[in-house]
């Protein structure tokens, strides 16, 4: 009895047979797609309206078919055997006296099977009729080279009133003349560097580092690093100028190395 619910629903509820089983079945059972397919084929061989088929006759045919397949020692997929067991039960139930029946009645089970066969048959016929229609690309053809419909994009520009006015305000703010005030800064001028270097070169003919020509850093305002940088820059330019005038020689042994200079006797 516990077979019934499962068997009555054997379609989707059944696990698919393993690939190997399906293959064996395919050969053995001539390409039927499962027990319902086989049953439908057997039913159609009765050559009557599916609504008038003999379920008992169908059951006998199915069982004998499965028996034969087993006799040939073919591996039968589980769902074929489950269906066989269920049909064997159905047959015995249909043959039993009515009073001893439990719910659901064997007539109901038989009807369910018949309804399912009808529905599968209906869809199989429908599929065949569908496939036989004049099909686009096989029997009838659409235009081979349609020009296509063009959709041109047109921009609808938008701008908010506030954005416009704000943009103008910002242009004006951005381009307003700005006065730059340069603060007076202590520097050593080129002139003072020139006279300082000329005077010091007169005192010796030795090579001296450019740094040595700067005012001593401990000396009051010359401690200011900014002023010292200015002194170095001006002294460097002054040294170049003196070299150009032939009053001094410059030497540097390596890139970024110390710059040395000495005076040239006229």
């Amino acid at each position, binding site marked *: 009895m516990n077979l019934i619910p499962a068997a009555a*629903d*054997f*379609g*989707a509820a*059944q*696990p*698919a047979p393993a690939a190997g089983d399906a293959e064996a079945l395919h050969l053995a059972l001539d390409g039927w*797609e*499962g*027990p*319902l*397919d086989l049953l439908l084929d057997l039913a159609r061989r009765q050559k009557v309206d599916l*609504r*008038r*088929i*003999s*379920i*008992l006759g169908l059951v006998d045919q199915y069982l004998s078919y499965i028996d034969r397949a087993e006799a040939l020692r073919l591996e039968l997929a589980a*769902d074929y055997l489950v269906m066989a067991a269920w049909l064997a039960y159905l047959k015995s139930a*249909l043959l039993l006296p009515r009073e001893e029946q439990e719910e659901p009645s064997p*007539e*109901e089970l*038989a*009807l*369910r099977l*018949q*309804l*399912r066969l*009808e*529905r*599968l048959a*209906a*869809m*199989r*016929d*429908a*599929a*065949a*009729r*569908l*496939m036989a*229609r*004049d*099909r*686009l*690309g*096989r*029997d*009838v*053809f*659409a*235009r081979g080279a*349609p*020009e*296509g*419909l063009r959709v041109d994009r047109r921009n609808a520009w938008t701008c908010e009133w506030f954005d416009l006015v704000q943009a103008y305000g910002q242009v004006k703010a951005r381009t307003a003349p700005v006065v730059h005030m340069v603060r007076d800064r202590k520097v050593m001028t080129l002139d003072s560097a020139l006279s300082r270097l000329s005077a010091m070169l007169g005192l010796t003919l030795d090579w001296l580092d450019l740094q040595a020509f700067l005012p001593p850093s401990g000396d009051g305002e010359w401690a200011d690093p900014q002023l010292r940088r200015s002194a170095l820059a001006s002294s460097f330019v002054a040294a170049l100028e003196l070299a150009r005038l032939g009053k001094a020689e410059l030497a540097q042994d390596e890139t970024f190395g110390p710059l040395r200079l000495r005076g040239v006797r006229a």
Partner: protein
Amino acid sequence: MAWQPAEALDILERAVEAAVFAATAPMTAEAIAAHLGGAEVGGVRAALARLAQDYAGRGVHLVERGGRWHFQTAPDLAHLLRREREEQRRLSRAATEVLAIVAYHEPVSRAEIEAIRGVQTAKGTLDVLLEAGWVRVAGRREVPGRPVIYATTPAFLAHFGLASRRDLPGIDELRAAGLLDPVDEALAGALELPGRHELMPETRIETENALDKNE
């Protein structure tokens, strides 16, 4: 039906003709109207109807498929136009069955398809139909598990030359015979369970007859 003299064609009719002709896919009357700069849909429909009559009997027909219009060659010329190189990959029997079940029962879940076929549906079977553009996912059914449900597409109707699903071969007869109803519903009707009296009496009688024979 004779062709209209070209002089009798108004600009809308010519424009509709040209638009459908030039389009790369079937077009609804609304899309045509929108494309023609907001022509009246009613006018476009009338033009389509007149054009369809114009072309009836010619080598090319104007047809409606699922509310979309396109030109296609006349079916009776198939034997002259069939091209070897365009021979389509044959659908497997499983795929054609699944397609028919989706078309006649839509929207339908995979479990419902399998219940009708009595076998599990291989993964690739639905994929082939989805890839062909004939079947689409139409959402989920609001039942436990929320299964995906499938339906056919306008391309399906166009491919099989159906103006609408009402044109599916034999669908009226199948519906009248209750063959599109689920088995449980048909069973309940056949057994005259309460609340199932709306089933066709003929169907009930026939199934009862069938039962009688089986006893």
